[in-house]
């Protein structure tokens, strides 16, 4: 029975090879669960499939609206992607905003999660209750209060206020996700690292980060999804700028133009491409690590102790 040791400090591969059991186990893990998982993904993609399909739908109406009757295939809307005034700007604004929110919220949320897990400090319980209240707060009143607040401070409404608001409601999600990852971990490993001579900085990057990295990634993804899709709070604090959800919601009254589906398809495709690239790079990394390990095993014994892999063994 082999134990896989991952030498990369990034995503730790905890898929220990469990010896193949017969019968039930095999059926569950090799067939039922994977099929189920793919079915769930397909279910999630049903409306997306509709959107992608109808972004290619011909529309004979002279009004720029999505046609819900299938009339024929066309790539016209992709060629005229910029054909609706304001839509492309709204789209790019949303992307910019979501990226900025994700970065800021991921950093702040992770730091807060670390503080909550590692320390006992005065005000800790209040902080936790605040996080909970933040998730529970209905957006309408929160958005309105925020608007009044910004106006009282004479802050011009726009990208800045949008960013302030978006980070505000994203931090809690990142913190909770990272914390779920860390809950129960023995943080003595950090002291173990420092005993072995690592500076706090090295400790953070080589010991703490690999532990929390999946949590941060999950939290960041949540923050991105929250920000790019936010409607209620944004409608209060956007001022005269328009985000993509705001634009689309406004257009729903008469009918959304096909270019909306085009942008939706684009962002979906980009996401899928990133996922696929990640998959490929993971495969490449694994092959690289295995090659390196094989090389190290064949080399003579005067190997320098690799602190990194030592820690990985220790923390597992």
């Amino acid at each position, binding site marked *: 029975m082999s134990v896989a040791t991952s030498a990369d400090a990034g995503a730790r591969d905890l898929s220990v090879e*469990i010896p193949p059991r017969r019968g039930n186990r095999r059926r569950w893990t090799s067939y039922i669960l994977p099929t189920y998982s793919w079915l769930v993904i397909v279910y999630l*993609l049903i*409306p997306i499939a509709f959107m992608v399909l109808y972004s290619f739908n011909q529309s004979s109406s002279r009004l720029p609206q999505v046609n819900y009757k299938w009339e024929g295939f066309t790539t016209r809307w992709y060629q005229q992607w910029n054909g609706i005034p304001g839509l492309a700007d709204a789209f790019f604004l949303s992307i910019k905003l979501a990226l900025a929110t994700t970065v800021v919220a991921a950093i702040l949320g992770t730091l807060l999660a670390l503080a909550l897990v590692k320390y006992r*400090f005065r005000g800790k319980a209040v902080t936790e209750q605040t996080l*909970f209240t933040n998730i529970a707060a209905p957006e309408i009143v929160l958005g309105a209060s925020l608007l009044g607040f910004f106006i009282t401070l004479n802050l011009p409404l726009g990208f800045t206020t949008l960013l302030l608001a978006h980070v505000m409601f994203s931090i809690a999600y990142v913190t909770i996700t990272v914390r779920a990852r860390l809950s129960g971990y023995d943080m003595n490993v950090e002291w173990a690292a420092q005993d072995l001579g690592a500076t706090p900085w090295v400790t953070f990057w080589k010991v703490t980060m690999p532990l929390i990295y999946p949590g941060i990634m999950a939290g960041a993804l949540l923050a991105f999804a929250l920000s790019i899709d936010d409607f209620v709070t944004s409608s209060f604090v956007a001022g005269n700028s328009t985000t993509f959800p705001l634009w689309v919601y406004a257009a729903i009254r008469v009918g959304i133009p096909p270019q909306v589906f085009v942008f939706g398809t684009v962002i979906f495709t980009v996401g899928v491409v990133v996922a696929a690239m990640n998959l490929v790079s993971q495969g490449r990394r694994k092959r690289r690590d295995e090659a390196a390990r094989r090389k190290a095993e064949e080399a003579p014994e005067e190997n320098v102790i690799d602190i990194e892999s030592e820690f990985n063994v220790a923390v597992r």
Partner: protein
Amino acid sequence: MERHLPTDLPGVEAPPPRRSKGRRQKGAYILGAPAILWLVVLFIVPMITMVSLSLSTCDPITLACQNTWHFAEFRQVVQQYHTQLLRAIVYAGVATVIDLAIAFPLAYWIAFYGGRKKNFFLLMLLVPFFVSFVIRTTAWQFLLADQGPILQPLKSIGLLPENYHVLATWIAVVAGLAYNYLPFTALPLYVALERIDRHVVEAAGDLYSNRRSVFMRVIFPLAIPGIFAAFLLTFVPAAGDFVNASILGGTNTTVIGQIIRSAFLDNSDYPAASALSAILMAAMLIGIFLYAKVLGSRTIEEYI
């Protein structure tokens, strides 16, 4: 969490002496300060405004509001809207249970057997939600229409009565909630399951004779913090949601989120809207607290 190693065993040294308490706390403040500051300024202050508004009376002519400690507002809005409040909680609860049921096997599989494809699956879980909710809901409206591509075939082969409809019922609302909040359930579950040490699972497999015991006695208890976080991140926002009910719902599916929106926007009744929001949040807090107690678990703070 610290463990005290038995120091009488050879080769084990006592852990290094704790640093002074003051210095420990300082680390917490440095790490947590940016986030806490952000939340205090941009969340706590508006929240206090909201609570203050809920106790205010507003002049109907000038729309100016003054805090008059008008606690009767709470009783009044609960009396008027308790149906919608309960509905919101029930719909959110059902949707959350559905999501937990759907997401758990999925998260389990990705965490334990995903291997290299883990991040790929996670991204595929989330990517549909980068597309605007308006687009998603429009798509569902089209797909679930009475004569639409899903119901029509079922009707023509006689599986469903001719006048059956899904839209404009509570089923559509709950289905919409379940669909739109699934990633909020799946991700915390995945995160918690992923960190379970495989060797613990293996050891349990050696100790217990069947897989079910391994699951019920080892994996599931270790996953409880994740289940709790998933429940929280799904149920709580779902209870305040108004979009699904307004687009997919019908005549008797109004939820508290719609009431709050109407009170605020249509009636300019800021005290009522604020009071309802405060009550909703309080109901969440109490509910989660009780839930944690029932689970026999530690304080709610451990899971947040």
